[in-house]
């Protein structure tokens, strides 16, 4: 086996260090933590910056993980932060559509529910925050697949788990569906996870345009659809909510 390449080892150590921190680190801090000369770290950092794997804060000059790493399968926008920033507009979406609202992020090839707003009718409902949902059978999952194309391949070539008669279990058929989602900018799940339940989702994007999450409404098919057609005003509200949250994420973090 050939000898490991030292600069790649060091670059990996830098990325691992940055990924484990919730705050930005200065060059001196990174060098100190890794026991490397500042000059060495600087050289590697310049390269990582140029490929977008790290980002530098223009004011403080400190570093953190870069957006390009998101495309490699992990998300750096904290789910708790996403919930906080989306709180008002998730409420808004529930109030507009009279349906329950969920926010999801990517987690280990599944959708992690980071926020849930009850359907505003004061009926008994249970908070589902923290639940993991399958990507291929949910509207949120399809949106996240559409904006992270490499993930579709990772779901494999085998038959996907079936939840209802409507679940898309053939990866080829799923790929066609994902292409459609990419074109139209939103996704639906027509009774593909739970019998009788339909869901519409749209992407939440950060300032780099990366889809850091998805927002969805869910409810009985007869309320969300006219016949088998999604009610366009509901889809429009979901997309407007997603756009508003995305716009807020583009602002300077508080």
């Amino acid at each position, binding site marked *: 086996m050939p000898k490991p390449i030292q600069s790649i080892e060091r670059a990996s150590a830098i990325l691992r260090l940055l990924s484990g921190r*919730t*705050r*930005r680190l200065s060059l001196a801090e990174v060098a100190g933590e890794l026991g490397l000369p500042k000059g060495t770290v600087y050289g590697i950092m310049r390269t990582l910056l140029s490929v977008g794997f790290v980002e530098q804060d223009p004011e403080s000059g400190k570093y953190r993980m870069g957006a390009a790493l998101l495309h490699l399968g992990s998300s750096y926008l*904290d*789910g*708790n*932060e996403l*919930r*906080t*920033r989306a*709180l*008002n507009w998730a*409420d*808004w979406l*529930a*109030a*507009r559509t009279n349906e329950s609202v969920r926010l999801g992020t990517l987690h280990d090839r599944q959708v992690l529910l980071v926020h*849930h*707003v*009850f359907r*505003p*009718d*004061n009926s008994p*409902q*249970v*908070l589902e*925050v*923290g639940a993991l949902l399958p990507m291929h059978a949910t509207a949120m999952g399809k949106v996240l697949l559409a904006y992270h194309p490499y993930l579709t391949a990772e779901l494999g070539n085998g038959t996907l788990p079936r939840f209802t008669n409507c679940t898309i279990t053939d990866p080829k058929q799923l790929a066609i569906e994902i292409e459609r989602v990419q074109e139209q900018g939103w996704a639906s799940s027509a009774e593909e996870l739970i019998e009788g339940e339909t869901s519409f989702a749209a992407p939440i994007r950060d300032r780099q345009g990366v889809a850091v999450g998805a927002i969805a409404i869910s409810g009985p098919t007869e309320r969300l659809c006219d016949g088998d057609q999604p009610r366009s005003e509901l889809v429009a509200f979901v997309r407007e909510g997603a756009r508003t949250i995305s716009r807020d994420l583009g602002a300077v*973090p*508080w």
Partner: protein
Amino acid sequence: MNSYVAAIDQGTSSSRCLVFDHQGRIVSLSQKEHEQIFPRPGWVEHDPREILRNVVEVVHGALDSGGLDVRDLVAVGIANQRETTVVWDPHTGDPVQNAIVWQDTRTDALCRKLAAEHGQDRFRERCGLPLATYFSGPKVSWLLDSAPDLRQRAEDGDLLFGTMDSWLVWNLTGRHVTDVTNASRTMLMNLTTLDWDDTLLDAIGVPRAMLPEIQSSSKIYGEAGDSLGGVPIAAALGDQQAALFGQTCFSAGEAKCTYGTGSFLLLNTGERPVLSGHGLLTTVGSKIGDEPATYALEGSIAVTGALVQWFRDKVGLIGSAPEVETLARTVDDNGGIYFVPAFSGLFAPHWRGDARGVIAGLTGYVTKGHLARAVLEATAWQTREVVDAMNADSGIEMTSLKADGGMTANNLLMQFLADVLGVPVVRPNVAETVSLGAAYAAGLAVGFWPDVESLRENWHKAAEWVPNMDQDARDRGYRKWKKAVQRTLDWVDDDD
């Protein structure tokens, strides 16, 4: 109906404007932070002119982002940070100095002197409040003594006093008024007559000539000038009273807790003021038009969200406030530590200005994750103390807690709160209850809504956290918390 109500939420850290529709749904929002001025340790000031500029700017900002015009508004309501004190010259419109903010402790010596001269009880039975640096009256008196000739000018009517509501309404409409909820935070108003009290004015040293006229919380005070296109200014409430109103707690026995910089639990006690035997404040809840005022018991907690901000800005273990939850979730419990954030003494139910913060139970085992957890748990345990006091004063056991405010986005906190209270915690669909309450009061004044009962239909549950902690663990944790609180007391010495 194609018209809207706007609410101005003039808060401690920012000014916001939210526009609501007839169903009480948010249509648009704009906000702007203002500078926190710290001239000395314990002193906190705001520039009233900056706040006025920001308020006008956010109203236009909210209208713009909703594609609306001032003419689409039927009224504007104001909810404001309470107790923060402005004194200005009515001839020039200029404040004589920066506003003294509610958190400011410069009147500590004055309050101790007043307590020694008159006794605590004499104030409390008239105004419902204990002597504390928190309230406006001593702040005005301090300010008038801070430079020669100010007191004389005030007596001659050449200086005006107001809390933020008065300052804004005076600038927008030219009327020098305040609402009864804001007046109830000055220590200068008699709770029974709802008018300025000469005994209190004499004792604290505030000339009557500088005081605004006390009015209802919901009525048309006047029409705004050109800056806001003549829209009626039709409500003013202290922010916490506005939140009580926005949560539709219109009847005796209904309560809410708002989680922000500090946290404030208010219980509607109906048309009669209830004096607390357990360290709560008696305050006015609201007064709608010519109807009788409703009163409330209040448990004020000075530092809750502010502790998370401190953890972010001063300790630097997190980059943003929501990340405290992420860090807290790296561990399963608090590792045996309790964090009592008595940064400016303890408010309800202790009212101890001599207390300072402690982290109790530290061992070598403790990690930053445990610290983050203790930071969040502090908010829940402080709520538990206030809920216990509320239950004791009212004789009614609380069966669920209506929570609102920014910290309700913190899921770990909300679950832990349900755990330590042993009752469900519910969040309404509009977390912005402060603004919603001001909008409701303004809308009622102009007939946009017929009555308060019609507003109840707008309240919807958005989330519910159910207790999931056994009684033993709850009792053990509370016992430790109380021991930690004991360790904060008697820290400040006279020569500090």
